[in-house]
């Protein structure tokens, strides 16, 4: 008895939550749950976890687009059936992990993955660039200022050798969000690629009355730039609407989220900002926010060459100068941000000087600084 559209509420099952995870664990994981001793990375993309029992779990980690088809998932299933007892898992960075219980099973798995073209790159362990956590972009989002999947593909093509090797001073987390909503840990990543708008919202006086709760649109603005106003629609009628004080707008898009009659996306206005030096872990130093170093790069489709070059330059400058274990933000703080700008050759602009809330915390209140090329 399947779904009956005439009686949609009959025999309804709700609120059952996700299936219990235990049934999906590979045998070696189930057996040694909570009893792992240590791990080692045998080669890039291959982890070995040793249990108290002496058992070993060998993991092969492969990259994937976050946007994947069911055909691709079925192929992953085919591989997992062949090598891993029908078990597989995903990581929080959209990598796929195939687990086997002995070293002998690793090479056949690697060979199989390699035989399938470029669909399953092995890597993302240790001091590497792991997969880019990202958002929907133009593929499925209604408020983006850039695409996500395309920028990620272009950047990862260029950083590919850093994904499949472990030559960096520490792991480098790259993340992309296609607007300031930041559906991803972009605000705390080593290198963050962020879609931004630069034109204030237009107001559709014809549609606003029927579409929007004006008080919500007004309250949505963190800087009070949206105010109630009487305006004239295209029929010449006076309507209750809003106006935007453009010089107070910081293009966050909140008003549009609350009110579809206030679109702000624009081909020339939109683009990418680069923020760097964030981290989530508590290792050595406390978690840090990513800091804005490049305020705008254009949306040059299909490969965003300026963004790719900027990310690569930052990554390679860091790789050349940082100490072992030092995350990008730790390196920048040790040498001083003025030195970061000098070494990377990124022009320092006034856009990197904070003028939002709590900005004062970022102003230098000391005579300690380095004489770099910025001081004429």
């Amino acid at each position, binding site marked *: 008895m399947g779904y009956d559209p005439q009686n949609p509420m009959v025999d309804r099952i709700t609120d059952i939550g996700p299936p219990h995870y235990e049934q999906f664990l590979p045998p070696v994981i189930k057996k040694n749950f909570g009893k792992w001793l240590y791990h080692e990375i045998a080669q890039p993309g291959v982890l070995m976890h040793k249990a108290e029992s002496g058992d070993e779990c060998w993991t092969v980690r492969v990259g994937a687009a976050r946007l994947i088809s069911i055909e691709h*998932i079925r192929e992953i299933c085919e591989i997992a059936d062949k090598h891993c007892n029908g078990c*597989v898992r995903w990581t929080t960075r959209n990598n796929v992990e195939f687990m086997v219980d002995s070293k002998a099973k690793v090479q056949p798995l690697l060979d199989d993955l390699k035989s399938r073209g470029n669909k399953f790159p092995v890597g993302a362990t240790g001091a590497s660039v792991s997969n880019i956590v990202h958002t929907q972009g133009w593929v*499925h989002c209604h408020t983006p200022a850039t695409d996500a999947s395309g920028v990620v593909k272009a950047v990862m093509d260029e950083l590919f050798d850093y994904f499949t090797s472990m030559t960096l001073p520490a792991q480098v987390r790259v993340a992309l969000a296609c607007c*300031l909503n930041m559906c991803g840990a972009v605000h705390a990543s080593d290198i963050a690629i962020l879609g931004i708008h630069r034109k204030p919202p237009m107001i559709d006086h014809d549609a606003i009355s029927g579409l929007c709760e004006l008080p919500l649109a007004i309250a949505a603005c963190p800087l009070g730039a949206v105010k109630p106003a009487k305006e004239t629609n295209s029929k010449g009628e006076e309507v209750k609407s809003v106006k935007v004080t453009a010089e107070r707008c910081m293009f966050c898009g909140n008003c549009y989220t609350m009110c579809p009659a206030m679109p702000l996306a624009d081909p020339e206005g939109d683009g990418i900002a680069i923020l760097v030096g964030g981290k989530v872990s508590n290792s050595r130093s406390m978690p840090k926010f990513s800091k804005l170093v490049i305020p705008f790069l254009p949306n040059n489709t299909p490969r965003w060459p300026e963004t790719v070059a900027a990310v690569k330059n930052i990554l390679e400058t860091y790789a050349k100068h940082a100490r072992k274990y030092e995350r990008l933000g730790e390196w920048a703080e040790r040498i001083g941000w003025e030195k970061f700008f000098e070494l990377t050759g990124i022009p320092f602009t006034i856009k990197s000087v904070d003028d939002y809330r709590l900005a004062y915390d970022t102003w230098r209140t000391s005579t300690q600084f380095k004489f770099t090329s910025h001081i004429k």
Partner: protein
Amino acid sequence: MPKHDTPLLDELEKGPWPSFVSDLKRQAETKPECFDILGQVELSYKDRITHWKHGGIVGVFGYGGGIVGRYSDVPKQFPGVAHFHTVRIAQPSGMYYSTEKLRAICDLWQKYGSGMTNMHGSTGDMVLLGTTTPNLEPLFYELTHDLNQDLGGSGSNLRTPACCLGKSRCEWACYDTQALCHFLTNHYQDEIHRPAFPYKFKFKFSGCPNDCVAAIARSDFAVIGTWRDDIRIDQAAVKGYIKGEYPSNGGAHAGRDWGKFDIQKEVIDLCPTGCMWMEGDTLKIDNKECTRCMHCINVMPRALRPGLEQGATICIGAKAPILDGAQFATMTFPFVNIDAESEYEEVVEKIEKIWDWWMEVGKNRERVGETMQRVGLPTFLKVMEVEPIPQHVREPRSNPYIFWEESEVEGGWERDIREFRARHAQ
């Protein structure tokens, strides 16, 4: 649905990284609406702007979340994506799957959707990308009846909780993240499916301070594993690292010659509190000074392990920038027992205390971290009935603008100006 020319997207089929464009083309062979996804995205690449309309409220009966409505703004050109809603499916804790389960989901999506997914969305759900309104109810029926799966959260509700893989395959997990995540996801199904909050609320569970699920950056309620006794040391393994028998950091730096392992430089000098030293060839740790940053344990996993008195630190109020700016979560409960026996009583009690307060005082679209900022941490600590301790702040305040309450001041605030004037001329 016909195939469209996609010269711009075709460029993204080149290069070594897996191509989502090739994947979409592959899927389009059996799900032709994928041609229309490609067509619309190509148009976005040409116009450099999105072609999805704002929002759209759709769902299944009785749920206020789990489905995200999406409509094309060029439906005549691309009828295959005219309605293109997202279905969020709550993922199993730790994101382990059987191929049987995955195939069942693929078959369901073949039947009712576009064939495209996100594995996974940023919050952690499996995201099925692109279906129509009439398909939602039958899809939900089969999802619950045949697959024993449920929808995740969206909107102003508890979002699908997420965790790291915890004790399943990590030697550092200080509590069973999966068990806690699974328990609370089931315990709060109503809060996940029926929005009743001022705004979204996220739980994330990391097993140790490395915080692989970014709880401290991304969740309103971050539970991060920790310990309160001594780091366990295997001195023989310490010597093994010093001699170069074991690779530092589990071999994470193997791709470059960083020279011989130097325990002084790589471990002791990088300890943020300077609480370690060598006595001969024995490693000493003054655990009272340790802040459990994980660095030494990360570098020498065979020699050092978290202590045995394990629990979690709970931090409240992280969020991304929208609306008032990004926040990390504030350390509120230094050490909490994560006790499955009592059905995580200590954790549940704290969650519900936050919700009771936030649902009353939180403004529309105000995350709890923003409410905390608005009322101030002292007020929040009082609400939570937490004794203020130095651990709650990075440093004490540097301004003298102190709020005193009348009850705290000897003699109270009621004074007689005439009596004052009798002794002090104007």
